[in-house]
């Protein structure tokens, strides 16, 4: 049976489900209830520990009305991320979910988290030795101060664009999010333009080397 934990002002939800399978950082599941939504929604894994699978969900969206029902999950989908040496992790908003899972499994050297409000900081588990910011300072500003050159990011489009623009010497990987319907590489909904043509978040990603991605096409 699933459990719901709701943040102080009700803006965020942690959905916890029993799950005996495996999942690796970078992977995601689709979530629905018996009554909907019609298209199951993709969510990155926030945590998988002791047979419990957790997802971080922004409240108020279309998914919320179904969260009090029995939840049906499908997955894991997407390609796992391999461990990245001396990595700087950067998260924005609920994009923290897959970054949190990565940190739990592989650890990290430095982490910068940007969130729109304190409510989310107070709600999620944040490791001790990391830096977090709220607007108007951004993780991109802080990342310029880090000596680390390998970066894994998940967050808003503008954050990924900003990192690519301001840190051209870094090796930047992004866990990309896009609307999808099948999660299996059939519907061709979650398109990303790469130097090898159109790829799909669900089948070819969700993690992409940003230098190979045309962000202007993908996130115009």
């Amino acid at each position, binding site marked *: 049976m699933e459990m719901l934990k709701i943040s102080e002002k009700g803006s965020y939800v942690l959905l916890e489900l029993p799950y005996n399978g495996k999942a690796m950082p970078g992977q995601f599941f689709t979530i629905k209830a018996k009554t909907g939504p019609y298209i199951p929604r993709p969510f990155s894994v926030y945590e998988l520990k002791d047979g419990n699978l957790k997802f971080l969900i922004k409240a108020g969206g*279309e998914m919320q009305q179904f969260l009090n029902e029995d939840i049906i999950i499908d997955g894991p989908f997407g390609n796992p991320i391999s461990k990245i040496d001396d990595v700087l992790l950067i998260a924005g908003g609920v994009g923290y979910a897959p970054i949190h899972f990565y940190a739990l499994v592989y650890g990290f050297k430095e982490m910068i988290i940007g969130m729109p409000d304190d409510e989310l900081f107070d709600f999620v588990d944040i490791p001790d030795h990391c830096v977090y910011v709220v607007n108007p300072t951004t993780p991109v500003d802080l990342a310029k101060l880090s000596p680390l050159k390998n970066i894994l990011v998940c967050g808003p489009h503008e954050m990924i664009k900003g990192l690519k623009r301001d840190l051209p010497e870094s090796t930047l990987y992004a866990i990309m999010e896009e609307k999808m319907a099948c999660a*299996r590489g059939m519907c061709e909904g979650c*398109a990303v333009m790469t130097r090898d043509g159109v790829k799909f978040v669900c089948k070819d990603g969700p993690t992409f080397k940003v230098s190979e991605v045309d962000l202007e096409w993908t996130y115009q």
Partner: protein
Amino acid sequence: MDLSIEIEGIHFKNPIVTASGPLGFGDELFKYVSPGIIGGFTSKTVTPEPITGNMPPRLVYIQNGLLNSIGLQNPGVDLFIQKTVPFLSKACVRIISVGGENPEDFADVTRKVEKFADMIEVNLSCPNVGGKVIVSDSQLTKEILSGCKAMTKKPLIAKLSLDLDVVRQSQIISDSGIKIVNIGNSIQGARFNFKTGKPFLKHVKGGLSGPAFMPIALWKVYQVKEAFEDLMVIGLGGVTKAEDVMEYAIAGASIVEIGTQTMIDPKSIQKIIEDLKNMLEALKLDFKAIVNVSHRGGFR
């Protein structure tokens, strides 16, 4: 009971066929579904040259449906033949969907793919490419169909638009000597973001699929079958369960396609086929007996 049906000399072991589009070229689908259980598979539309498709976002989630703006992304006919055709299973009827901008495009693709197909579906109605919907131009439609017919003896299927008068379209198809109509492509729709004041999709409109539009598609199937008893009709739109297949058959469809539901849950197509068989067992009727029964006064 017998689920099989014959269309223009092509035997379908059951009336369940995958719709063109949502399932791509089958390479991912057939990891989940054996081609041996379905009546047929329809490929994504193939065009003479590769098409990149539309910029994201390509999907808008809506209640009970999906708005898509994929934009006919495909590798082009030559790469399709090289990479996909070798894997098209003969365990079900192979329908290849052909597309283009002019009669020469359609004829060219038909000529190249026809030997690998059991039937050719002529996509006259994609809602997600620029310009007018082909089937809105009767002369152009006739020239395209005539050109395709000249390239193959395999049965042709004309895929119609639900945004236009289906009876008028069917008249053009019938006049062209085509015996099978697919009713039809996803219907055009739009959604707008009240926070930005802009449409969600870059081309404003997309194609609506899913249960939200099933009553519209059912009505169009009924209309066409009422006006053209001799036309074979393929019905689709919003099928999620065996009862929906029954409704399409009752309205007049000899074949029922499933797209979005198979994409969401590939294995559900097997359950739909099993449930359909059980429903027909309970009625003690073969599938053929329920096709178009609404025009014969229903079950007596």
